């Protein structure tokens, strides 16, 4: 396929956490609110005058300092973030808000605070930690709303004078939805026998929507959508199988590239930083306050394994099944970042259940934060692709 016109522009934005668009937005006087977990409702960080930047540590090399502070047993994402923070890589942030989503991320941000890694020369800088529900129910919702009010809206207003009214939240949701609709519309081109966008390209665009001020990439995304409508897919499909990628945090687009280079087209992305369900638009009604509605939507759609009630656990696997059907996946890759406790369990359960109860071919892998060119991973994906192909030839890829 012909290269996407803005792909290099988007790829460039992913080279550093402190990208050009963040600097541009801050030069316009906007407040950059950093965050590290998908359970932080994004629109609340994107109120007029503020914008969100989800932290990542691109081109991570040594993590020695972070390993000293947190040992080698913590997941590499948390260590990579701390390392980058110690190096001064997040000095651009004006605040950081984190839920106690998992122990490791909590410790990562706590170390950032204790080591005074951020907020130098920023008079109004703040760290906020918030409790988030572990079950999707009325009680959980009440907690979520209260926590967002106390640990997001209140400090943003008090430190930076951000308007946190219902109107402001609704305006933020509207803008959030524009991005979501664009990403989802672009994602639609992954369907069908001859997709017009690769999983890698899509991951780049989606990732940018998490780490850049959203309004500053809107025009390029709109152009990309238009471009895709007429983009000619390759005559011969280079991929031998379509896979749904499920699992923990992935902000390393090289991992998607590696999977695709091994013959598996990543047709859907159900992972933190992915678009499913992270880029589902948030539909608000006029009867109830916006904050409560946002929290309910985040709580109900959240796919994080920390949600522990039975309905939510079952729903996680049903959602994977639904996506696999919708995106016509031949197989599922369950991945977890090494040392991630929540996904270690979810990967074990999910991979067994999706294989045994739903009949999908499933590959379960663990991976480091930055995979670059792992021969082992390539071999495993290639072997999986071959097994899926064989099943397809035998006419029994799935028994429904």
């Amino acid at each position, binding site marked *: 396929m012909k290269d996407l016109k803005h792909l290099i522009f988007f790829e460039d934005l992913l080279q550093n956490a402190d990208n050009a668009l963040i600097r541009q937005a801050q030069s316009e006087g906007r407040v950059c609110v950093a965050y590290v977990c998908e359970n932080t409702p994004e629109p609340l960080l994107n109120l007029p005058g503020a914008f969100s930047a989800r932290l990542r540590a691109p081109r991570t090399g040594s993590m020695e300092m972070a390993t000293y502070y947190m040992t080698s047993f913590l997941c590499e994402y948390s260590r990579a973030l701390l390392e980058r923070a110690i190096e001064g890589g997040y000095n651009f942030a004006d605040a950081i808000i984190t839920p106690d989503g998992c122990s490791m991320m909590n410790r990562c941000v706590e170390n950032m605070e204790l080591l005074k890694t951020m907020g130098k020369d920023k008079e109004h800088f703040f760290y906020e930690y918030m409790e988030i529900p572990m079950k999707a129910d009325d009680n959980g919702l009440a907690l979520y709303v209260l926590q967002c009010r106390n640990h997001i809206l209140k400090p943003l207003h008090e430190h930076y004078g951000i308007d946190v009214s219902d109107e402001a939240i609704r305006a933020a949701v509207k803008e959030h939805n524009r991005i979501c609709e664009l990403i989802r519309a672009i994602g639609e081109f992954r369907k069908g026998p001859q997709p017009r966008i690769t999983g890698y390209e899509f991951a780049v665009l989606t990732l940018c929507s998490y780490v850049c001020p959203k309004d500053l990439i809107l025009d390029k995304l709109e152009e990309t959508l238009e471009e895709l409508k007429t983009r000619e897919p390759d005559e011969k499909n280079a991929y031998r199988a379509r896979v749904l990628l499920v699992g923990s945090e992935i902000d390393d687009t090289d991992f998607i590239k590696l999977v695709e280079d091994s013959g598996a087209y990543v047709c859907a992305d159900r992972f933190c930083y992915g678009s499913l369900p992270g880029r589902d638009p948030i539909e608000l009604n006029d009867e109830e306050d916006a904050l409560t509605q946002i929290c309910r939507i985040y709580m109900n759609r959240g796919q994080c394994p920390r949600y522990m009630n039975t309905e939510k656990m079952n729903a996680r696997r049903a959602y994977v099944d639904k996506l696999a059907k919708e995106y016509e996946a031949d197989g599922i890759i369950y991945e977890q970042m090494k040392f991630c406790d929540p996904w270690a369990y979810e990967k*074990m*359960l999910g991979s*067994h*259940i999706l294989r045994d109860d739903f009949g999908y071919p499933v590959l379960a892998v663990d991976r480091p934060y930055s995979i670059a060119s792992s021969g082992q991973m390539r071999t495993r994906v290639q072997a999986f692709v071959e097994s899926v192909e064989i099943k397809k030839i035998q006419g029994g890829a799935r028994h429904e």
Partner: protein
Amino acid sequence: MMKTCLKLLGKLALAALAFFVVTFTVYFFNLDMKATALLAPWLEKWYDHLEHNQYL
């Protein structure tokens, strides 16, 4: 009557002494644990032979 009582008491005392000697020997020389240590490998083998419905 008195004689029978004394005899009975004597027997009881003897039994108590025998009980003490035997149990104290077992206690002090850790014979209870030594005996169960012999039983443990046999139990291990037994458990290994049991059928289990392993299920996730």
